[in-house]
């Protein structure tokens, strides 16, 4: 239970949309984001935060990536 602060490389398009491309995990490993499956406003009771939720496919797994006022988090 909790959240992990992660560093993200993202693409900001002209319309103001944000697409995360890859993330840097705590231990320094870098994971490319294969696909963004869903983007919506959501709260995570598990991590204790609220913001834009990106459902991402990373290495065949679905992961929720949250963006709360410019900071990126993953549920742990």
């Amino acid at each position: 239970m909790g959240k992990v602060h992660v560093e993200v490389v993202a693409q900001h398009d002209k319309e103001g949309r944000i697409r995360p491309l890859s993330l840097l995990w705590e231990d320094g490993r870098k994971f490319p984001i294969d696909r963004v499956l869903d983007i919506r406003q959501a709260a995570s009771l598990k991590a204790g935060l609220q913001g834009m939720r990106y459902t991402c496919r990373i290495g065949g797994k679905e992961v929720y990536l949250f963006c709360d006022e410019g900071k990126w988090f993953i549920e742990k």
Partner: protein
Amino acid sequence: MSRTILHVDLNNFYASVECLYRPELRDKPVAVCGDAEARHGIILAKNQIAKLVGIKTGEAIWEAKLKCPGLVTVSANFRKYLQFSRQAREIYADYTDQIESFGIDECWIDVSGSLQLFGSGSDIADTIRKRFREELGITASAGVSWNKIFAKLGSDMQKPDATTVITKENYRDKVWPLPVGELLYVGRSTRQKLQNRGIYTIGDLANRDVHRLRLLLGVWGETLWAFANGLDSAPVRLNGEESLIKSIGNSTTTVRDLVNNTEVKLVFYVLAESVAARLRKHGLKCRTVAISVRNKELYSFERQGKLQIPSFISNNIAEKAMELFTTNYIWDKPIRSLGVRGADLVTANGHIQIDLFEEDNLEPETLEQTIDTIRRRFGHYSVQRCAMLLDRQLTGFNPKEDHTIHPISYFK
């Protein structure tokens, strides 16, 4: 045509937001408090667990800690609350354009026009509650009815996270047994008056002869009677419709209790400057000045008086406030908080009757506008009254900019 109105009330709003961000607090009693150092140390909101042990909003922190030694107090983060409030409004906006906020955590929304699209009133209320849970992580109570008053009563009936529907068929069973004090605008003194006449429930009020109520409470008697019978027809305002300003006021709880007229005067000048600046900003003048005084026993009263000519000059307002104060206070107790309000507003460029023998207000008006300009360019504290330097502690606040959340009246 009968309307469908929802009243949505975010449950324990401040506390819910804090608990969302700090999962470790969720199973503990939590209270959101003002800043104790600045003497705003009261409970602003509490979560469900704290509610059960009897913590009340408005209590001092130490009182609450006596009741519940394990109480976790967190300080308020208004920026976050305003953000959630705005996001809640964005969700309402998916269903209608008639959204009227009532404070930061309550809204009326009129969905009469979108029933064909989204289903019945209670369906929409349930959808909105579900979206709050998923998208914002907080819960809400909703009341559904055909008028705003019953919708609000409905949202108070079941908490947390529930929808209550009050229809024309069931309102006699659901609303009428409630104590009369639950009704909007029945406060302590009105409730007392009604109880003296044997009116204890909303039903008692609804079944009284309206003329008798009028004799008892004046025009309010009729209004409350209409509320109790579900006859209120006030519309839910359109989103963004600016409400007409009825009065402009500021108040403050001072850093320490005030014990003499000089200190009161200093605080009045700070408040009057802010009120005057806000009047000027809106292009208004006030004809009446009202003050509110609260002593350290938390007993409070309000007095008002008319100005000779409408004014937006801080001197006029402060002098009137001081005059009202000296004639109405006998210094039996030190004072904890003070407020100044300009009411009876007129537009600033309206015509006035000039006094033949007294000087006109033109020069002081130009002076105050110049001060506004200086402050806008160089900051609030760039130019100040000399008197403010007598006590930096008492006067070191800026009510005009320090305030963000204003109280709201139903009759806008």
